[in-house]
């Protein structure tokens, strides 16, 4: 940072995280400044003449009017290069471990400056270009093995066409060492393995594609009923205790993505600790490496400064786009976008802007849109036919559990899948508490082919049958609430039983059960098929006059409900046995009444 070039300003007013400084002639909106003697990180949000309003990313207690403000000339940027994977960063991209070393203790103190990427670590760089080559933005310069992926070092997108003047031989280099020299617009430019990118600007790509490939999460109610695709978007709203965070953790753990970026935005400290404890222990089934090696975790917990919460989401999505540009499939999970929106509200109110709905600023929908629009499946920049994707899954924490509040409502407009969490299901410990009547996914139809190709089952047909049973059961339950279940006909009570079987045997999934925590698409298909066929198999019993109370007592019901706990390898055989048991019970019951 080249602060020497600029005139220093002076603080004239401090009000919480908002500081007004004078004497900052020529400063730009969104420029990063260093505030006070401790050089706290801040961003310029408003300019009037040489007066600038700054939002400060660190606590401002003890700052005085008259202290200096330095300009950096740069917008808030993310460092992109080898060394991101496996890191735990704060909302400004500073590694938490490095902060702990600098702070000399377990509490976060102010004014700490540490770079995102480790400066002393050597990476094994293999060039793929040679002297004299022409390069375009996005073209690969070389590769570095990193964690679970092959990291591609690319010509940053903010260059034009360049000519390679020199490139280093294969070897071990730090991110600060020059790996290539190019000629760009008539001048010599040194390239390193990392570059900086302003976090609020989406990174360019060649072409956006339609998303058609299921993002397998291993969570049955999601994959089968309300799927998300690679490059898709989804929101998961729900009151506290409905299981947002657990669901997001599950998706982050099991999604078949190359890289996962998890943004903990204004949430609990212990939840981040939970991730930090489980990620190194869990192994990615595809690569056999710990999940942490394919993950970037961003932790801006609720007690950390509010403005950094606003920035953390943009930092996270910039990392996600960077990995996408390597031709990788990325999932970004943000918990929670409501805390992010509230941070906007808090800052807007400190800036004395006129509030719109519930005190949120009028530009809230634009901000939400600008975040979700950075998802997508694209042909990446550069002269390669590579496809990369960023899928975004955002938790929403509606105040009072009311889905009509502005953040939920605006989010709904921009997402392709919507997983509405239901307090009543959560109270029953039906998890994931995704309400099957209020959730939606716009991606289901496009995935029929995918299921047939990958599992051999027309899953969408089973889904329709299951939905039909669930819908009918739901309206029957309404009636039963008034007249009692005993007053319903046996035929209707069989539907309730069939629905219950689908709920208990399929929709309910135990995140903490060794086997049940992940369910492959194949197993999902066979399981759902078996459960929806129960109704057809059991129907003849009603016609034959078997009382429903006898059907309720069938031993095979328990077997069917517990099929989901059977490991993948033994699953097919277990299904056969369960069906055989069911059929023999059915025929003996029918024989009894005859």
């Amino acid at each position, binding site marked *: 940072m080249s602060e020497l070039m600029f005139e220093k300003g002076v603080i004239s007013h401090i009000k919480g995280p908002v500081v007004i400084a004078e004497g900052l002639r020529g400063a730009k909106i969104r420029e990063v400044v260093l505030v006070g003697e401790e050089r706290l990180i801040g961003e310029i949000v408003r300019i009037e003449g040489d007066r600038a309003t700054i939002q400060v990313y660190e606590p401002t207690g003890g700052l005085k009017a008259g202290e200096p403000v330095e300009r950096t000339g740069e917008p808030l940027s993310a460092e992109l290069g080898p060394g991101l994977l496996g890191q735990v960063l704060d909302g400004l991209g500073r590694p938490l471990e490095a902060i702990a070393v600098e702070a000399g203790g377990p509490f976060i103190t102010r004014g700490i400056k540490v770079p995102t990427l480790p400066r002393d670590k050597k990476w094994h760089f293999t060039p793929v270009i040679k002297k004299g080559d022409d390069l375009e933005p996005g073209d690969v310069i070389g590769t570095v093995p990193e964690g679970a992926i092959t990291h591609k070092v690319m010509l940053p997108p903010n260059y034009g066409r360049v000519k390679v003047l020199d490139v280093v031989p294969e070897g071990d280099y730090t991110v600060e060492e020059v790996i290539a020299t190019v000629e760009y617009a008539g001048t010599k430019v040194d390239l390193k393995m990392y570059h900086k990118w302003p976090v609020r600007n989406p990174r360019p790509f060649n072409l956006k594609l339609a998303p058609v490939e299921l993002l397998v999460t291993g969570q049955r109610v999601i994959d089968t009923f309300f799927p998300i695709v690679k490059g898709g978007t989804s929101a998961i709203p729900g009151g506290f205790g409905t299981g947002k965070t657990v669901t997001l953790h599950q998706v982050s753990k099991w999604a078949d993505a190359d890289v996962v970026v998890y943004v903990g935005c204004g949430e609990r400290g*212990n939840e981040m600790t939970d991730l930090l404890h489980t990620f190194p222990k869990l192994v990615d089934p595809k690569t056999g490496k710990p999940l942490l090696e394919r993950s970037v975790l961003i932790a801006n917990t609720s007690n950390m400064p509010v403005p950094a919460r606003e920035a953390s989401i943009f930092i996270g999505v910039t990392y996600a786009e960077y990995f996408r540009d390597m031709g990788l499939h990325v999932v970004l999970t943000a918990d929670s976008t409501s805390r992010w929106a509230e941070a906007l509200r808090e800052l807007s109110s400190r800036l004395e802007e006129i509030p719109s709905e519930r005190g949120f600023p009028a530009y809230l929908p634009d901000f939400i849109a600008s975040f979700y629009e950075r998802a997508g499946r694209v042909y990446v920049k550069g002269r390669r036919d590579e496809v990369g994707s960023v899928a975004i899954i955002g938790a929403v924490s509606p105040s009072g559990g*009311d889905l009509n509040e502005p953040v939920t409502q605006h989010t709904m407009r921009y997402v392709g899948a919507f997983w509405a969490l239901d307090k009543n299901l959560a109270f029953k410990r039906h998890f994931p508490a995704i309400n099957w009547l209020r959730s939606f996914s716009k991606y289901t139809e496009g995935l029929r082919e995918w299921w047939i190709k990958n599992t051999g089952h027309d899953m969408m047909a089973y889904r329709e049958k299951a939905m039909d049973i669930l819908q009918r059961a739901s309206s029957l339950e309404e009636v039963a609430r008034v007249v009692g279940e005993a007053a319903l006909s046996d035929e209707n009570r069989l539907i309730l039983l069939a629905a219950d079987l689908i709920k208990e045997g399929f929709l309910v999934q135990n995140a903490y059960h060794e086997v049940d925590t992940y369910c492959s698409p194949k197993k999902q298909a066979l399981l759902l098929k078996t459960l929806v066929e129960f109704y057809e198999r059991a129907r003849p019993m009603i016609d034959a006059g078997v009382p429903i109370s006898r059907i309720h007592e069938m031993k095979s019901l328990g077997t069917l409900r517990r099929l989901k706990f059977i490991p993948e390898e033994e699953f097919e055989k277990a299904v056969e046995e369960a069906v055989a048991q069911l059929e023999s019970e059915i025929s003996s019951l029918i024989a009894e009444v005859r």
Partner: protein
Amino acid sequence: MSIYGMTYRGIDQVKGPLVIMRGVPGVAYEEVVRIFSEDGREWMGQVLEAGKDKVVIQVLGDTEGLESNAIVKFTGSTLKLPVSDEMLGRVFNGAGEPIDGGPPIRAEDWRDINGAPINPAKRDYPDEFVETGLSAIDGMLSLVRGQKLPIFSEAGLPHNHVAAQIARQAIVPGKSERFAIVFAAIGLKYDDVLFFRRQFEEFGALSRSILFLNLANDPVIERITTPRVALTAAEYLAFDLGMDVLVIVTDMTNYCEALRELSSAREEVPSRKGYPGYMYSDLASIYERAGRIIGRPGSITFMPILTMPGGDLTHPIPDLTGYITEGQIFLDLDLHNRGIYPPINVLPSLSRLMKDGIGPGKTREDHKEVSDQLYAAYSQGSKARELVQIVGEAGLSPRERRYLEFARRFEREFVAQGFKERRNIEETLEIAWDLLAMLPESELTRISDKTLEKYHPRRRRERAVAR
């Protein structure tokens, strides 16, 4: 406090708890201010806005009697609490000053009452089961050391008894410990405070506790500092002295109301129900101070009590609290009216950290499954109970009737217990199995075959007979 800082005479404007001064350079944001009137009265305040031209000070305490030619001394320091192990057994007010007639504290250190956020990478994950001796909590809402678990209550419910019983009974099985209790009363009546004091005295914990009292007739503005000074003391005991600290703060509703009052005096844009938009962040800066730290022996387990206005769970206070804390214990008026103590309704209650605090080696291998099954069955029973209101008991199917009976027995035998009764986790799980044995085995879908085989009372009886 610091001897540095400037002293001025005269203030420009007083507006509620806010004092405005002009032309005082070099004032620091959040700096502590002392104001003296000519008749010798003294106020403490804190800088809310520090500007070249204008300084806004928030005064702690009642501003009655504040005069325009008062003397204002800027101390050059933010609000700090003197901490030392001498604080144990003492009583302080909401600003951290002794009010028990004893001498001032000889400070080992001065700590900023706002603390600093714990680095998430340096947090130790709370996973040590705390046995409270209450079946509803141990069996279904297990508390772990370092957790923040609030009690959501209503006026008139026995939340003080529940909190006192937990403070008295809680142990970590198989571990000797240095424990302490930090108790903060925010806007409480004196008889409530007396109740807690008597309880602590009765079980010999008074010398191991620190009391911070802001009573109903104490300055409203000190309600803002009360939980902060209490947690600052708790952090010192836990992370410097290595003690396991239980912090009980009651009533957080009074805290939030003070926050709203202050926000409206500052003319801020209100969010829901007049509470400020930053209430979530503000509450988080309090609640998130609970926890454990890697490499340090102590812990802060935090149990705030709040009364939900009108019993409304969606009111901003319980709502925002629930989003920050690691679960909640929900006390239910209906259960209370039916004579159930503790009136814990387990359905809307939750302990988020339970999963890692229970199971083999901690409690028992069947704990998780039993708890899940109890939830599912009790929820069925509650549904049946609603139905009875409409169709009468005769209109229920035999299955529904069985669940109704289950719910009744669950409340009377599992949830209910005496104020002095302590059940260990084995006893709690045995009661649970006795209740689950009422139901046909095909209904026990949350329990695996293996666990059924080992723990179901009928299977155990069969095994005993076979032998």
